[in-house]
């Protein structure tokens, strides 16, 4: 599965992009199995917080910095890193 992550927002408003494919990335494959994008709460409107747009094979979610926990946090970290 192809995973794309875009970080936007923050005081600086500087975007950051990352992309990886689980077929060539066993760590990502294990993380994807543990993530449920449908269970992510709405990001909230917190001034200057980071927002993460996550796309896993066309399934998408926007996650606020405050909600970025657990396996999803690891996944974002992994793909953007």
């Amino acid at each position, binding site marked *: 599965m192809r995973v794309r992550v875009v970080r936007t927002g923050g005081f*600086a*408003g*500087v*975007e*950051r992009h990352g992309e990886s494919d689980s077929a060539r990335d066993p760590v990502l494959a294990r993380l994807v199995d543990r993530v449920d994008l449908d269970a992510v709460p709405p990001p909230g*409107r917190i*001034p200057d917080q980071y927002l993460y747009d996550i796309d896993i094979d066309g399934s998408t979610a926007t996650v606020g910095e*405050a909600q970025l926990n657990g396996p999803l946090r690891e996944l974002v970290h992994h793909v953007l890193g």
Partner: protein
Amino acid sequence: MPPHILERVATAGDPALRDIARRTLALSAGVRSERRIAPVRPAAPTEDFVPDRTIKDAGYRTELPGDTVRAEGGPATGDPVADQSYEWLGTTFDFFEAAYRRNSIDGAGLPLISTVHYGRDYDNAFWNGEQMVYGDGDGVLFNAFTASLDVTGHELTHGVTQYAANLEYYGQAGALNESMSDVFGVLVKQWHLGQQAADADWLVGAELLTDEIAGVALRSMKEPGTAYDDPRLGKDPQPGHMDGYVDTYRDNGGVHINSGIPNRAFYLVATALGGNAWEKAGKIWYDTLTGGKLSATADFATFAATTVVTAAALHGDDAPEVAAVREGWAGVGVQA
């Protein structure tokens, strides 16, 4: 994909930088945004407002609020970041009192809370609905976010906006929310330095970029889109005119991008009126934000029209100030 030149830190060749970027990325905290409606008791005209500051230290973790290191009137901590944050909070508080007779964020003496040393190499500062939070920067691309007075002014003004018009943090209302923070952020700095409109640099976050970065600041209100152009940061994406308005769902609908348009409108009005920008132009914007007539979902045109109404209320329908406000908005392609 928005027409936004992309940052390349994540793919840069320097492994140390990538590691820093990685740690900055995935942070969490129990933050939330809420509006509090506080009844504001009118202050006596001679009442001297005094701040109630608390500086907390997150110890490079991401739990808020952290441990108190300095309370109002307490001795300096010896930590330059904590002490700078304390000073900038006081300067911003004094600015709102001196310029607009506002007693703190809510107009009713709300305590000011700042947490410093948030996260590791954290390249950001934010307002979480209750307090300000500052990262130390990564030291390679960004310095500590306490370095610029206008960043404290920016974050504290998010609180003022929350208690005033409460502009929704999305789309044009969100870009206006961002612009309010940039406007009053730079006005705090100009007031602190005793600079007139014509003498100010109109930059936001000038002290945040390290010497490594090809750029002068994070945003320019005078010339949006020109603040930086760097291989690692990309290019400043801000438009300074409606012709360059960016339609995007990202960043809450481009709040940090399209804020360049109302930012430049303010710059045009302030320099047309001359003198101290916080006195005439700033007062028109402040009264518009806090006057109770502005909808939380106002778009640029609605906000612009309200600034014209405010200017007329302050100076009279036929005053040159009213014409200057209209011309400022026309200069960025917004019909006021």
